[in-house]
């Protein structure tokens, strides 16, 4: 296994987060320096005999070091950070991604130029070095899309599309999280973010576009159909075409299930299938308390094989 995904603004991998991190370093060093100088002045003022201090010079020091200098420093900082706030230039025919926040998971849609639209869920993949516009929206309540290592957070607001322009600069495994309270399951609404080389990325896109692998064990697929899971979930090229829950066509290619909550294992899928509401409060998927564990395992095996 690789190291666990990082979700930290202190481990930046996106252009914007890297710039913010650098600014943070500059500001921290500057603040320490200024603090040190002020402490030193304080020490000198307290220690020197009274008759050696001039009132006029002191007042001048307050004016220069207390008013003029801070204004100049702030102006310099403004000129330093403002260019970072300019959006990255987006080349024409760039990859477009939509992320839709839904209680309590993420629908992701990829639009590569000249290729059919691809929908998956609960994972964001980005090609390293390419600028991508992520269109953020929501069908239910306000969510907030936050990948601390990539860029600042941006709200997903029902009825409008917010555009977040990002560029991943380092490959790796990262994590994002809903950052606006959106209901009972808010705290377990996360997702994996995978930044990969453009070649790997194209391979992944091609893999995702393939139809679902035929079930090795038809019993699992039949059980899935029998319980009506396909009313909410889509598995492309099968009867299942629901749009309410996450697309499961290549579920097993993800690292987690249920929006970063449980590991991708047969057992976890079986548990979640039987009793999603007790694992994730407020979840929009019913419990199946009467489902025999063997059926849940069969469904788990079927779904965990959908690479």
């Amino acid at each position, binding site marked *: 296994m690789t190291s666990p995904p990082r979700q930290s603004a202190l481990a930046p991998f996106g252009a914007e987060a890297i710039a913010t991190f650098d600014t943070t370093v500059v500001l921290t060093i500057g603040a320490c320096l200024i603090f040190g100088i002020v402490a030193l002045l304080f020490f000198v003022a307290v220690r020197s005999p009274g008759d050696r201090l001039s009132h006029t010079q002191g007042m001048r020091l307050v004016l220069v070091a207390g008013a003029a200098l801070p204004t100049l420093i702030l102006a310099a900082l403004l000129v330093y950070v403002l260019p970072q706030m*300019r959006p990255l230039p987006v080349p024409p025919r760039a990859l477009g991604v939509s992320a839709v926040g839904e209680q309590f998971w993420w629908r992701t849609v990829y639009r590569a130029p000249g290729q059919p639209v691809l929908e998956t869920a609960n994972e964001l993949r980005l090609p390293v070095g390419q600028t991508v516009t992520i269109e953020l929206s929501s069908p239910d309540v306000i969510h907030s899309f936050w990948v601390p290592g990539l860029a600042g957070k941006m709200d997903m607001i029902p009825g409008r599309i917010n555009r977040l322009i990002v560029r991943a600069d380092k490959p790796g495994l990262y994590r994002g999280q809903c950052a606006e309270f959106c209901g009972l399951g808010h705290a377990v609404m996360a997702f994996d973010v995978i930044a990969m080389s453009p070649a790997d990325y194209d391979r992944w896109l091609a893999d995702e576009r393939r139809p679902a692998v035929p079930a090795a064990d038809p019993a699992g697929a039949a059980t899935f159909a029998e319980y009506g899971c396909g009313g909410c979930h889509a598995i492309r090229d099968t009867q299942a075409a629901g749009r309410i829950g996450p697309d499961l066509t290549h579920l097993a290619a993800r690292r987690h299930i249920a929006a970063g909550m449980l590991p991708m294992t047969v057992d976890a899928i079986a548990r979640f299938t039987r009793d999603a509401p007790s694992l994730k409060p407020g979840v929009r998927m019913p419990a199946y308390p009467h489902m025999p564990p063997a059926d849940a395992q069969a469904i788990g095996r079927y779904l965990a094989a959908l690479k």
Partner: protein
Amino acid sequence: MSKRRPRGRMLHGLHSRIVTARVTLWTLIVPPTVWAVHFLFAYLWAAVSCEKAGRFASFPVLFWAGTALALALIVASALVAMVQKETPGDPPPHDAGTDTDRNRFLATATWLLAGLSFAGVVFTALPVLFLLDCR
């Protein structure tokens, strides 16, 4: 000595007019008012060009002219206040308010406000220069 050159006399006249001019609360609020109007102007500038033209203003000559005008007004008010705050004060004890002391106080406050407003206008204008995006 020789008679003053006309230019010098003009400046001298201006100077004596400034010294005798009354400082009031109205002159005090000139710099912050200019700052406030410039602030509104900057926001309207961005909002109108984003809404009507669909993009951030790319030829902001008018904006820079407005900013220069605002800074000039603030500097002018600071110069006037600087002369006025240097008028000799009444001798102590300062037991009652006198017109001179009142003038000196208001002039000093105006001068400080002018410094603040200058920085305010510059800090408002810089983002307009650097941001190129309506989002």
